[in-house]
């Protein structure tokens, strides 16, 4: 299974899916011109990976600071795939949800994700932007 790495641009996030290490990172901002064109290959690779594992510990680090509405829908599909894999193949998936303390929008989306996808081990983490910079 090939890992995938997509470098960050001004409008699209860094995707660093280290499938062999079972650590998946998404970092940056997401407002590509066509969200489904950007995310479709990522979703396909993720689905293939998830089908290949069982009874495995996976860490997903969600570190987006902004995503537009079309990307939100694609991200929701990502969490749907992860949740399905956790429920059917006994994978233990930790979803580390990094968010700025002041950013209600991202925390609220995270809480919706937590409610909708209960097989995921959702862990909100306050990100101190000032310290990061």
């Amino acid at each position, binding site marked *: 299974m090939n890992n995938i790495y997509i470098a960050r641009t001004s409008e699209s996030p860094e995707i660093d899916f280290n499938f062999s290490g079972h650590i998946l990172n998404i970092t940056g901002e997401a*407002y590509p*011109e066509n969200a489904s064109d950007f995310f479709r290959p990522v979703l396909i690779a993720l689905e293939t990976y998830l089908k290949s594992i069982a009874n495995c510990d996976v860490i997903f680090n969600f570190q987006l600071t902004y995503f537009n*509405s079309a990307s939100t829908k694609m991200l929701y599909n990502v969490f749907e795939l992860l949740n399905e894999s956790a429920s059917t193949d006994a994978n233990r998936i930790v979803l580390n949800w990094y968010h700025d303390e002041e*950013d*209600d*929008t991202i925390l609220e989306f995270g809480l919706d994700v937590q409610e*909708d996808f209960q097989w995921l081990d959702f862990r909100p983490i306050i990100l101190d932007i000032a310290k990061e910079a």
Partner: protein
Amino acid sequence: MHIDVFSAFRENADRNGILFYYSGSLSQNVIGAMGDALKQRLESQDAKGSTSRKLFSSFIEMVQNAIHYSPDDPDSNGDKVGSIAVGKRDEKYFIMCGNLVQKQHVGRIREKLEPLKRMSLDEIKQAYRAQLKNDQNDDAVSKGAGLGFLTLARDSTEPIEYALIDAPGHENKLSCFYLKAII
């Protein structure tokens, strides 16, 4: 344009609290440049983090909506064109976008926006979640996730306003579509 006309234009913009105005061709590159300029303007205006994030989000939704749905401008060599203004009045920011739409879509746009005007924030959030879970794309024209207007309505502190006006010179085919949100 004479200098005195430009002067009046500038003074009028100042009086109306305009911080940022762009009119012209819209592309993802322009979004990047305008987005950066907007972020810098907001920093210098000391906008709180959450206000500036919501303004940026509304800016992206409005401009991408214009890029996705506006037909090529018949008067400007087939570019996608639009106008965007960001300003501040009474301690609140407003953002407005204007672009062309095909007249045949006017009814559809009204149907999407009219109910939002009467919904509470809780109802908007519920509709947003329902749309997020909805796997059926029941709108053949929509290229996004059907979440754009709901995102704007969620971030706006007042009901979003809109107007659809016949496009001068193209009354039979095109309308000017204006959207306004207040953050």
